[in-house]
């Protein structure tokens, strides 16, 4: 994988490189260079399979990390491309023309993280949530507890033990 990284580095301004396994590495790519890099990987290096496209919310840094995981079946290797974009007004160029199936991922990211992919098919339509007007729910600052308290009635459960204490007593009785 290191070899591929060195090779790509001569062509694209790549950022941080992490080799997770012998057959899996992650590399940070500037936003504007993602598309040419994807086309290069697909057409020249055999990374024809888009495994997944997802986002990670690094709220402390004010950034979203988009992960494009590419798979080369013949070469038995995977390369994850990390693209960091600002959280405010998050938008990214779509890749649905390269992989039609990416449109589905982009619809989900639009709905769940509020990341816009202008021009992607049905990107502003409802995908999983219906009639949702609040904050995109997969953002870190979305409070799941507050949401459930506001939307669902509290149902008193059976009188039970404190789960944390019970687990500690059961699993690690000797530890302080």
């Amino acid at each position, binding site marked *: 994988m290191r070899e591929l990284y060195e090779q790509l580095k001569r062509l694209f301004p790549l950022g941080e490189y992490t080799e997770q396994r012998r057959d899996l590495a992650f590399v940070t790519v500037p936003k504007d260079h993602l598309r040419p890099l994807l086309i290069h990987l697909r057409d020249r290096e055999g990374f024809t*399979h888009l495994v997944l496209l997802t986002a990670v919310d690094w709220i402390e840094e004010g950034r979203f990390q988009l*992960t494009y995981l590419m798979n080369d079946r013949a070469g038995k290797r995977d390369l994850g491309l990390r693209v960091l974009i600002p959280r405010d007004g998050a938008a990214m160029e779509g890749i649905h023309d390269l992989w039609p199936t990416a449109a589905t991922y982009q619809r989900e990211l639009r709905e769940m993280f509020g990341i816009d992919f202008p021009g992607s098919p049905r990107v502003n339509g409802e995908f999983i949530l219906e009639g949702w007007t609040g904050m995109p729910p*997969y953002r870190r600052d979305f409070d799941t507890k507050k949401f459930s308290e506001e939307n669902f009635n509290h149902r008193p459960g059976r009188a039970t033990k404190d789960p944390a204490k019970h687990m500690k007593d059961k699993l690690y009785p000797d530890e302080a």
Partner: protein
Amino acid sequence: MALYEPDRSQYPAKKPDGTLDIDLTSGKYLKLWQGPQHPGITGNMSLELTVCGDEVVDCQTHVGYLHRGFEKLMERRTYIQCFPIVCRICVPEPDFNEYCYAAAVEELSGITAPRRADWIRTLILEMGRINSYMMYLGGQAGSLGMGVIGQWTTYVRDLMLDRFEELTGARIYHMFILPGGVRDGLPEGFEKRMEETLREIESTMKDVHEAMFCNAVFKKRAVGLGYIDPALIEPYGVTGPTARAAGVAKDVRKDFPYLVYPELDFEPVTGKDSDAFTRADVRRRDVLLSIDLLRQILAKMPHDGPLMAKIPNVLHWKVPRGETYIRAECSRGEYGYYIVADGSGYPRRVNVRGPSYTHAVALLERLIINVNIADVAGLMVSLHTYPPEIER
């Protein structure tokens, strides 16, 4: 090679932006919702069909009826609290969630599961695969008008659930493959009872072959239905039996061997014609392959040795910062977990990659054009879709 000639003159024209010019008031077209409650739908998913006469001219997949927000829930739970959640993402084949999650957490924490646990994990995954295929075969036959096949396959699936029950204590959600290993070894006499179950399944598969695959009605309806051009495999992210039926021998067990698969002797099952019939046939032969693999596993597996690696105190388990992706071959294709850890006791992000995500939306919406309404259910089942893994 469709079995009917579509009447092209009735088809909608395309607008400049590429969308179809469908005027519902013209009386030519009709909107028809198939699902979320429909005998031909697996799980809760609905297809918004636009039909012209009996033919589908446009389709949109609607999901979200089963969204439980697993990925979000996991961000608020410790690593061990996530373990009993993951299996619920896919009801008919929960073990792949457990394995992928456990393997990803182990990799990020630098833990290696004991060898014996790997053998038991492989055993469970193959048992789960047979279960899932049994549900599929019943559904595929049922969607094309043969209800009895589903009753046979449900019977043998139940026998396999008995084996699961004695091995794990549970029938559906096993919660057996923990990060670090597995919960228990094989019970006394398990091999013998498993062999009896496998023989029963083999005998049923013979009946299924004769009653379903040699049946003129099934052939007439399934041959040529939902042809997937091999050129669509990569752009549409098609994996598993759906890709193998198109002649692309994609099988994670062979391409990226995990657990003890390198020690097992097998070749991925492939087909050529890439239609609903071939996909069903590939899956039928895959059941026979899994039976063979189960026999190999039971004959080769070690019977003593540790089942769990040493793991940290699970109540305070912190996973170092990092990210990884673990994949496995489930009955529908590539199943994978992408986990990002930020060094705390909670995962920063867990993303589940289910094969239905690509198959049931982009691919199905494309294949369904020109199909007769009566074949929509058969086509959808032939992609073996499980909606819960689309919306997680």
